[in-house]
């Protein structure tokens, strides 16, 4: 199949069988500069990209999207997590969408930015309540959407702060500090 044919095919993707669709998607994402995702489907990926960027947005420095956190999440899902962990994560994406539809009658990605923020604040507060319960010795298992958000927050921070953007540009961590100072003023660090 030639590139032009794939692009044509993608225009009418719904009529094509799955393997071809997957091949087309892989090529499409290569053409658009991203890596082929192995686990997340386009809708799941859109959600992961959106939520990761909401957690660590571009400010005066680049954010989660620029650091390709979604690719790291996909790698973790495909090659690091076991089947159960992966299934829970994907189930949680679905449940968050369900909750979004119930609340706003739209998929999460179809919501307005303030609706998305409201949705995440809700889940974030629920997860915080679970942590408090843990500290008081009354552990409760998270629901799928809570577990998903908890995990995605962790993976976003890990994926971002261990990227070159996060580690070198945002935090200015030198690989070779050259010396050790025990106790210096914050703005004198490394000077």
């Amino acid at each position, binding site marked *: 199949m030639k590139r032009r044919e794939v692009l044509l095919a993608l225009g009418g993707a719904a009529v094509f069988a799955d393997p071809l669709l997957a091949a087309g998607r892989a090529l499409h994402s290569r053409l658009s500069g991203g890596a082929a995702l192995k686990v997340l489907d386009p809708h799941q990926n859109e959600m992961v990209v959106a939520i990761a960027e909401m957690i660590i947005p571009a*400010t005066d420095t680049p954010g989660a999207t620029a650091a390709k956190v979604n690719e790291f999440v996909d790698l973790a899902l495909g090659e690091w997590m076991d089947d159960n962990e992966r299934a829970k994560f994907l189930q949680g994406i679905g449940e968050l969408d369900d909750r979004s539809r119930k609340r706003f009658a739209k998929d999460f990605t179809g919501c307005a930015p303030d609706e998305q923020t409201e949705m995440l604040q809700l889940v*974030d507060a629920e997860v915080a309540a679970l942590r408090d319960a843990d500290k008081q010795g009354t552990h409760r298992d998270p629901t799928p959407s809570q577990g998903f958000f908890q995990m995605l927050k962790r993976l976003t921070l890990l994926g971002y702060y261990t990227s070159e953007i*996060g580690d*070198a540009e945002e*935090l200015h961590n030198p690989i*070779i*500090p050259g010396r050790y100072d*025990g106790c210096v003023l914050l703005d004198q660090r490394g000077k």
Partner: protein
Amino acid sequence: MAKPYDAIVIGSGISGGWAAKELCELGLNTLVLEAGRPINPETDYVEHVPVWEMKFRGQGDRKARNATQPIQQQCYACDEMAYKFFVNDLENPYTTPEGKPFSWIRGRQVGGRSIMWGRQVYRWSDLDFEANGKEGVGVDWPIRYADIAPWYDHVEEFVGITGQAEGLSQLPDGKFLPPMALNCAEQVVKDGIAKHFGRERVLTIGRAAVLTQDHLGRSACHYCGPCHRGCITRSYFSSVNATLPAARATGRLTLRPYSVVHSIIYDAKTAKATGVRVIDGQTKHALEFKARIVFLNASTLESARILLNSGFGNSSGQLGKNVMDHIMGGGANGRIDAPADKIDFGNRPNGIYIPRFRNVTTKSKDFVRGYGFQGGGGRDGWGRGSEMMGFGADFKRELKKPGPWGFGFYGFGEMLPRPENFCEIDKTKVDAWGIPALRISCAYGENEQKLLADMAVTAAEMLAAAGAHDIQPFTSNNPPGLVIHEMGTARMGRDPKTSVLNGNNQVWDAKNVFVTDGACMASTACQNPSITYMALTARAAAFAVEAMKRREL
């Protein structure tokens, strides 16, 4: 048959490297047999690889590690960059009885575990060398501090140790390079402890085999942090960085990697070893090498395995017995009121140390011996974000700033020798080279569990003395082996009926065989043991060469 060597050293780790250096420098043509592959610092060291260049961002290839290194990955240093310095568990099997896990952490390459070691260096004192004899535990050490002190000096001068002299009887000072700095929180804790406990409990900066100034052709530390991945400036001590180059410089070193030792060849008529049987690691061909003396430095359990597979050295019945490790994992964490506008800079490859204070000047009712604490302070990083509420621009700005100051104590306690902790040849199992494997049966006892519980109490007391808040005492259960301070399988002693080695690390039953790794230890003390192996090795090498000159060997 190849030409006979003057000496064969089995193993190129921290003690084998010393045997090689000393024997070569004393004039012996020396063959070092290393089971694993050669190490080339330029291509094998990975300490400066940025985390974003690693596929799993330093978290490791979990599925690959589960498949081939289920035991090795329990060690913190077996990470995504450094896992290659640890053995493949499938190629190197051993067995344990049901309900008695033992984590045997191993490195098979030139340099052995000296590449990934923790680099902490603490002398023993007579408190340690006299304890067995005074308490009637195990066997009395055949040496005292005065016997080993000049050898501590000898090895420390070459190694280069950073540390602070404290004048404590239970932790003799060494030949120190300038100490590393304490950070803000550590200074607060040090002051709090000093005020409350006087000279009984003392916080000092860790003593480490890391250079704080250029030393004998090796460069001062540049504080990149992850020493266990190698060090291209050779700033921390390892066989590859220091002793093997010194041995090579004599022109008398032959280093043979991929040489898996099967056994030592023993001549019952002369009661001496004549050479070493090797399985080539790559071709799996059997080979033999001859020498006048053999230094066995394969590590505590491997050395026992080699002797057991050799069929000599066990007239006392103690070979393989008295397996010990330290016990670790009691301590406490807390929040420290240190300056919010200050932080440390650089990745200091060292922490703090609290020398043993139990059963030093006063006697504890509950247990014998004692423990020391390692640990340190620091400010939380971005990792705290996953436990924090919030997201978005403010959240990101918050995580850019360092978090609150914290401090943790982590205890390392002495383990007593007990004959019921032992290793033996497992007749049902061989390794990838067809060599009979070990069965290890070892568990902590009552005294160790009491030390562990006490660690949590005294660590919390010291944090309280430093004005800490949110103090969280803890005790964690770690299987023996995981401290990676295993010792005792061929103990030194005064009597051939109850020990495997004499006071010069000579096998009682084969006077030209010397065992100078952790196998020789009659007790564990609570200090990190490597510097004591080094000192004993140098001492035994000098003795061996003198004895050869006198034609006794």
